[in-house]
């Protein structure tokens, strides 16, 4: 099972949203990190054939997904970023409808829907109209529909947005548990979600891939790029202008900043432990 993006490009007039992207995905969870406008959603829309590509190919097991058409969409699960819903439908009806759209037989759909509603903790409110759901509940319904039909390629755009920590952990574990023999692409701003479950992390900036690796590899790659230094409140503005600044915190009555970059100040001390993906994010994607 392999999904290849070859020279994938998307232009909107002069604006290049995705710039000659070349990636190969195999089974596993891929976390996609990038600021707004980095090209994450464009990539996902190209993968779901919701927008036309300007150049390049997307191959699934060697065949272009456009050629596969319906057959590719049969193995695709997609959870969009925007919470689009039929607000007048109940969760159950909505899931049955989506199951029908995915061509899942009724009997199989019934079992899957029950399981997914349990997994997403929505069984008790399955007959409530979606319009009355909170943001987090809607998010869970969207996730449930994406997982209907045992898809081989799952595209999740901000799946944990709006969820409380308990729900986030629950959903995260659920995604992790079902990742075997699937390609799961997970775009999010919540770095901790990716950190704990992703096999590979893809860093995107201005339509290009600027880094890719396992969380450990990426953290390792910034091992000598993070420092913590104390600075007076008067100097804070200057430091923020000069370096990419992570956390600003108080320690022993002094103001400390965590700075990230290649040419760091001689002051302060390198952080060797407790490096995180936030540091990676700022190093690769911070302005």
């Amino acid at each position: 099972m392999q999904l290849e993006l070859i020279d994938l490009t998307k232009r909107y007039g002069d604006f290049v949203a995705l710039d000659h992207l070349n990636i190969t995905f195999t089974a596993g969870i891929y976390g996609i990190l990038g600021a707004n406008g980095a090209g994450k959603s464009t990539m996902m829309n190209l993968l779901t054939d919701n927008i036309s590509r300007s150049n390049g190919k997307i191959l699934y097991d060697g065949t272009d997904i456009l050629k596969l058409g319906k057959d590719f969409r049969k193995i695709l699960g997609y959870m969009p970023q925007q919470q689009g819903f039929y607000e007048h439908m109940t969760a159950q009806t909505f899931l049955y409808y989506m199951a029908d759209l995915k061509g899942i037989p009724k009997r199989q759909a019934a079992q899957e829907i029950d399981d997914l509603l349990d997994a997403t903790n929505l069984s008790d409110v399955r007959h409530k109209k979606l319009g009355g759901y909170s943001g987090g509940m809607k998010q869970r319904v969207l996730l449930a529909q994406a997982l209907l039909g045992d898809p081989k390629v799952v595209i999740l755009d901000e799946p944990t947005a709006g969820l409380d920590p308990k729900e986030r952990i629950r959903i995260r574990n659920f995604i992790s548990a079902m990742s075997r023999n699937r390609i799961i692409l997970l775009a999010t701003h919540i770095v901790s979600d990716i950190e704990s479950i992703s096999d590979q992390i893809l860093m995107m900036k201005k339509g290009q891939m600027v880094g890719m690796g396992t969380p450990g590899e990426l953290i390792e790659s910034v091992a000598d790029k993070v420092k913590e230094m104390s600075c007076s409140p008067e100097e804070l503005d200057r430091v923020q202008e000069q370096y990419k600044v992570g956390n600003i915190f108080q320690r022993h009555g002094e103001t400390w900043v965590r700075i990230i970059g290649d040419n760091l100040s001689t002051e302060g001390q390198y952080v060797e432990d407790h490096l995180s993906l936030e540091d990676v994010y700022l190093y690769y994607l911070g302005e």
Partner: protein
Amino acid sequence: MAEWKRIFRNRRLCAGLLVILLLNGFLFLREQKAQDYGIDGTIPAFSFSLNIGEGGYEVAQETVDSMDGYNRYLQWLEDYKDLPLAESLPKLEKEKERLTTILQIYEMLENDSEMFLSDSLEQYRAEQPELVQQIENGELDLYEVHLDYAAVNHLLKQVQYLDGYDDYLNTIRANKDKMLSFSIFNDPDSFSGRNIILTAEEFQALEGISLTLGADGAISAFMDFAITDYLLLAVLMLICISFLDERKKGLWSVVHAAPNGRLRLALQRTGILLGVSAISVLLLCGSNLLLGFSVYGGMDDLGRAVQSVELLGKMPLVCSVGQFLLMYLLFKIGATFLVALLLWLIFTAINNVKYTIMAAASVLVVEYSLYSFLPVQSGLNLLKYFNIFTYISLSDLYTNYLNIDLFGYPVGIRAVSQYACLPLILLLAVVCIIIHCRKRPAAGKDLLGWFVYGINHIVDRFLRRFHLLGMEFHKTLSIQKGVVILLLFLYLLSGLSFTVTIPVTDQTDAAARQYTSELAGAITDDTFRRIDEIQTELDNTLAAYEQALLKYESGEMEYPQYDVYAREAEAARIKSTGLSVVRQRAEELRSLGDEKGFAPWLIEESPYKGTYGNEARVNQQSAALVAMLTVVLLLAGSFAYETQSGMTYLLASTQRGRKTLLRRKVGMAAILTTIVWAVTYGLEFHAFLGVCDTGTFTASVQNLSMLENFPIQCSIAVFLVGLYLFRWLALFTCAMLTMLISSFMKRMETAYIATCGVILLPSVLYLYLDLEPLKYLSLALLVEAMPVLIDLSSKGISIFIVLILLLALAILSGCVLRRKTKAAT
């Protein structure tokens, strides 16, 4: 001011208000035209003619253009309005008599062949030689006489009312004395006794009032036009619903927690309701009044006693027309404000927005039912008159005089409603403000929640069995409220008629129709033999008359006996003319059949003309527009709903979310179109079968005069099948275009507006405002089908061109839709 700005910056609300204002003006003018500007333009027919024909044919009555008639009335009014009523009345009666005589002479001259009329005509010649001479010489324009007749008739009725008003007052006074003298009513402490006394006392104020003649059309139309009342209610609903915005958008807690979010906001909203009530009354009622004045000839004298207007004659109030209008408008503003406060009260009292609207709708339905359907004599009539609709339909208070029984005492509805208005306003305003301030956003418990959840549970059990097509129906009929549209469709359909009776133009026409019915069937030698036989019988009757004439002239026969022969002979002569028309038609058809190769049939065509012909154009237009409106409203949301719900990308990412879903949507459109088509045209065909002999269905369609140039040789039955299929195709094309437009729209509202604008508006403007250039954009013409088929047949253009165009349009729409659903952006 911030709340004013928030509400009136809502473009949809402003567009809604503008539409209501324009709709009000349009409907007002349309209503005046429909009511013939109050003029009875029918010209009386005098029964000089013989009763020919056994089919009970309706005779066409001449009418004058009602606007012309009204303008002529204004001219007559100008001459008479300064005359005392006692002088006007006999003059007008004499004038009406003169005009009636002229019309009678005209009719006699038109029927001068009728021998039995000759005596009457000679009498007129002797009595009024100049008049008869003038008519015979064509010095009098018949249409002008008709206009004068309609105008004088209208003016005379008005003068008769004014002249009889004192008698009306005297009758009330006399009734009081007379009724109290009966023992059963002689109890002054009973409701009846008190009511009689109160009525007489109230009308006593009008003793000696001087009523004068004037153009009352504007005031009558203004008071009579009830639609404005309901449009005002719609305005209030829109404004009150806009107060719910904060709840819909989850901002109620924020607003309630803000320093100015309680009392100050409540006061502002009270002010807004008052302002909107005043402005909307002035705009809607004011525009009615101004349109009325422009249509009915100026303001005239507003200083006249208000009872001079017949519609207001039952109002025991001494004031001028101008004073009344001022008082009415002020009261209307107050009443509108009161209704607005009541709506706001319902809206603020319930936390859940959905239940709020349901509650308001339920209250209005219950109140309207009580107001409209409770009998006046009912013991519960308090509920009928102390009702929100009393304040909505305010004009009823002034055009009717009614006291109801309140614990044995008669209470005047008008007076009570007027006096109660201000206290009720104050009370409701205070209650609304208190509720607004004290109602806590988080305090409401969803009492119906468990019930709704249970209902959803049951519905879900059904819906889980539905496949894509079923779900498309669910979305359209349930979620997008298509069921309401279908109910509206059935309601509109129930008001339509599908056939018209084509009146006979004269006696000859009646005879021709009767013979056509008798001889209907394939035209053979036998047909002509039968015609000859009938002709012989008629000739015999004429011969008998010749004999009788000789006898009468020689004194062997008395006049009454001779008169019978004369009438029979006259009837025979007319029948003979009618028969010759039938013979001529039969010959025409035979030669046309030989020429074009179809079997000639004699068919009584009036059922066909009355259902499918130009004579039934209005019916066909209405049916087509109702069917189109239903299809458009049902399907306008089909794609816009997906976009508005944000589902487009998600649907397109699924296996069956593109072509399959599109096919299901088209399938649903086809089924809904078929239902609308079947109901509409099923009713039409049913009505047609009620008047038509189905035996003629096997005849060639070219035997019908309106389709004699129809290029395809087929029977009437086949033609009708083709006609209805053509209509289905045209309606289905409308459905496809609707879905196409819907696919370009991001919101349901814009989809409804755009589809109605593109598909319906050109048809409406062409059909109702005669805007000829829009003929080629009028899809209703294609749904009507008959005008197109007749028009093309007469021009020798193949109907297949239209058929192919329709098909192409439907297929093209489908292709564009397919392309659009292929790539979601």
